[in-house]
């Protein structure tokens, strides 16, 4: 797991900053990028193990659909 803390967000994430974004090596060897959730400061170390979770991305989408997406949380 590689991490950074986003402090100046894009418009659709403006009410969530600051939040960590991580690149994670999955069990099948592929990498994914995602928001880190349910984290504490001590979790922000390179190589920290995480698990993928399905979380809400945005409350208001076009035509009021709620977007969900894969995020990661520390084990």
């Amino acid at each position, binding site marked *: 797991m*590689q*991490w*950074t*803390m*986003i*402090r*100046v*967000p*894009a*418009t*659709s*994430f*403006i009410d*969530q900053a600051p*939040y960590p*974004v991580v*690149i994670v090596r999955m069990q099948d060897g592929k*990498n*994914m*990028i*995602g*928001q880190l959730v349910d984290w504490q400061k001590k979790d922000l170390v*390179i190589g920290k193990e995480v698990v993928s979770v399905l979380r809400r*991305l945005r409350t208001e989408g076009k035509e009021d659909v709620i977007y969900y*997406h894969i995020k990661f949380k520390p084990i």
Partner: protein
Amino acid sequence: MKINILGAYSTKFGELWNISPRALAKEAMENALKGSKLKASQIDALFVGNMLSGILGNQANLGSLLVEELGAQVPAFRMEGACASGGLALHNAINSLKAGQYKTVMVLGIEKMTDHSPDEITSALMAAGSDEERMAGATFPGVYALMAQAYMQKYNVTEEELASVSVKNHYHGTFNPKAQYQFPITVDGVMKSAKIADPLKLLDCSPISDGAAAIVITSESIVNKAIKQVNIVASEVATDTLSLHNRKSFTSLTAVVEASAKAYKKAGIKASDVDVCEIHDCFSISEAIATEDLGFSEKGEGARDIAKGKRTLFKGDIICNPSGGLKSCGHPVGATGIKQIVEITEQLRGMAGKRQVKGAKVGLTHNVGGSGAVAVIHILKN
């Protein structure tokens, strides 16, 4: 066939709220024409590099719009590759000369992006990344910050060593009357600046800027005996995955390694032959990694070599970013690739004033799109 640079001009870069896109384009192209000693009617086509006119200005069809400012109703094209738009416009312009369809063309890089809030601009710039990166809430500083974390850990490089990139570029910027920022900064100042995406701080990041740059290139042997002739001897492009997380490495840009290898071969030179170069330092980490990918520094030593002064005007061996780079000169996205050519042209002509690298014979420009999805390398010789 030799590709000759005739005129080369850059506007001032900065927050140019009172200058419209049309006026900016006109200033750049008029002055590039003046420098070429040509009339607009002698230009066969216009190539424009720009990233955000559609996203921020709702203006597409940019070739058609801006050719009106050239003063000659000729074929006009816009090329886009995020921050490499300028370099790609030049690459395609050169190919049009090589194909023989056009003989003399104008290449314009232009961007207007300062009239927007930070979150608007952050969102717009993420158009250069992937949908996965956008949905992860990543930002451009965030993506490069992930590279910086990996690089610092792998090679034991400190934030202070990375900060020396910004310090060097601001020092160079003090000699550039066109630069957005013409004041020096210190490592301490960088360390104290606000965090944008850990570990990158405000002064590790290039600014948001307006600006334009234009050059006239020709395959004809028009020789202006008053100025040293400068030719483009290599123009190479390479691509890599759009997303950072799909790359083989987070501490090297394969697209840069590939494009520069092709360019060195074409130009018949090796990395150490380069006297002066303009590097795409969108962030401090970018220049550190670039100097390694281009073969100037050993892997892991890029930041440290910069901290030691090896890339600094008047004391280094291969001088990087005499213009002040993206950090100090500014980064109007589509204009940067062409500004880099303008700077190297002035260097090789011996007309760079206080920024002159003495006796420069071989120059290189390094223009990158997104987080490394596309790299454009040009090599110039006098």
